[in-house]
């Protein structure tokens, strides 16, 4: 995990000099999706398969394969860290988001939010955080009401369920 951060930083700096963040985002996420298949990791770590053969496999998976990405993959193959790519992709996205001033927010609500509510929420969050907000939403009926907002590690729990839970523990300990 810690090494993923370093790789992501290196990729980020490369992308910065090239002035193109998005193509790396695409490549890394395509690779991450492909690595969902455990067999691919086995192939990448197999010592009997040569580096060139492995690169050929990757070429089949990634569209529009640029030279930068090839060298990056070769490096990871040599280090045996191909399985870190999903983490690298995540860390890279965090770095790109922070330079673009984007904050990714996951909102979980009891019922599906309507458009009006969404814009209101986005506006309030972007005012508070001073960043552009990219909202991703999901519905969880067990919340009963209200919303739970996640920004990275931070959680704002405004749900009825969360309130009931904390009320229960405060009553039990009171």
């Amino acid at each position, binding site marked *: 995990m810690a090494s993923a951060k370093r790789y992501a930083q290196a990729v980020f700096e490369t992308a910065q000099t090239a002035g193109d963040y998005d193509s790396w985002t695409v490549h890394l996420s395509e690779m991450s999706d492909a690595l969902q298949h455990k067999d691919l990791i086995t192939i990448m770590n197999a010592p009997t398969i040569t580096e060139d053969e492995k690169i050929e496999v990757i070429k089949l998976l990634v569209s529009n394969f640029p030279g930068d990405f090839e060298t990056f993959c070769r490096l990871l193959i040599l280090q045996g860290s191909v399985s870190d790519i999903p983490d690298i992709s995540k860390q890279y996205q965090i770095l790109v988001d922070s330079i673009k001033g984007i904050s990714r927010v996951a909102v979980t609500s009891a019922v599906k939010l309507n458009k009006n509510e969404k814009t209101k929420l986005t506006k309030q969050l972007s005012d508070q955080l001073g960043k552009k907000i990219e909202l991703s939403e999901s519905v969880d009926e067990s919340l009963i009401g209200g919303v739970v907002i996640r920004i990275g590690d931070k959680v704002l729990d405004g749900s009825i369920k969360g309130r009931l839970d904390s009320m229960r523990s405060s009553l039990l300990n*009171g």
Partner: protein
Amino acid sequence: MANKGQDIVSVIKKQMESFGTRVTMVDTGVVVEIGDGVARVHGLSSCRSMELLEFPNSVFGIALNLEEDSVGAVILGDERSIQEGDEVKTTGRIVEVPVGKELLGRVVDPLGRPLDGKGPIKSETFRPVERVAPDVSKRSSVDTPIQTGIKAIDAMTPIGRGQRQLIIGDRSTGKSQIGIDAIINQKGQNVQCVYVAIGQKASKVSQVVGTLERFGAMEHTVVVAANAADSAALQWLAPYAGCAIAEQFMEGGGDALVIYDDLSKHSWAYRQVSLLLRRPAGREAYPGDVFYLHSRLLERAAKLDAESGGGSITALPIIETQAGDVSAYIPTNVISITDGQIYLEADLFNAGTRPAVNAGLSVSRVGGAAQRRAIRRVAGRIRLDLSQYRELAAFAQFGTSDLDQATLTQLERGQRTIEILKQGINEPISMEHQALILYAVTNGFLDSVPLDAVGRWESEFQRFMQANYPEVANGIRESNDLDETQEETLKKGIEEFKTSFIA
């Protein structure tokens, strides 16, 4: 009953009303690894060291290792309900414990939760469990004694308020008993006691509580217990919690006595936690900071100066040695931290010398200054007498027929001194009565009494003095000294008693 139900309803109502609608941002993480009382939590980027973490189902943990992406935490409580992938929240609180007079008479765990079934602790005051010890400018030197009520200790290794005196010895040599006797003897002395049981059998802890209750000593005592079945984290936390409770008494200007029973098990618990958190192991597999573990705890025992209220914490840590080995890692550490030690020996214990205090190896580095003048006057020679006796006794094993009269007298005196220093359990003796009997033995009044009658002589003598010359004991109690007129009366009393005593 209806009344009580109404009470509960109104309490709940009040709490519900005051229950804010405020939503606060909390830092969260995800459990990636759990087992053996230790969890690795991914995330928690703004977590602080020693912060209380909340796991699901109201299980709490303490963040100990803060790493780049994850936090190593120990679980306080049942870890079986926690699974990989569970969400962990920070609480913003450092581990704390309720303190104050409300805890007196109670048995609590290291987080201040009651273990005695006597209902919730009503204390409003909390203190962080870990705290930096009072610094030099706030301390004064140890000048008041704390009486343990044990003749051998008060005479030879006196303990002052604010001192740290180690009790060390093999298993079942009467270590805990010294602590318990000391607590019993504080009854009516305005000293609040804290007994910290670390990793002991629950049956033994309940026995101790029973003893303290029987002697009315629970009124001024708090028992903090992390038993053998509790998690290592709780055992590790227990002495710090006990110390925090005592600090509250100290900072209120009072005197406190803390017994840590025992720090050997405490270091085992900490070793377990450290190894599970993958901290590097050192000598005997203890982590590198095991010295600091105990030094920072015992440093919190202090005598404050008048400006800071003049309170004190006296600490009596207990260490169990293996086969008398005082040069093992933990014993040497704690010996070097404390201001002296009471060394208990299995051989002496088995030979019937109880308390089994080894006078040669036991020292008190600061308590002498605090000793009452009366005791210092009568007991000043005891250590010397005993060490000379021991030397001669080794020599006299080969037969006493060739020895001169002076040597024989010294041998007789030594045997009687040892006999007088014997004392039953849970029978602490007040300072003035100690002074009377020690005066009698050090001045040779018992030399002619047969050895097997010494015990009876002592008890009958105390009764005789109480009946006929109570002014001597009263005078010593009031002035803390034995002046010449009292000494004359005492001598007269002893002579009188000796003629009436039939061996």
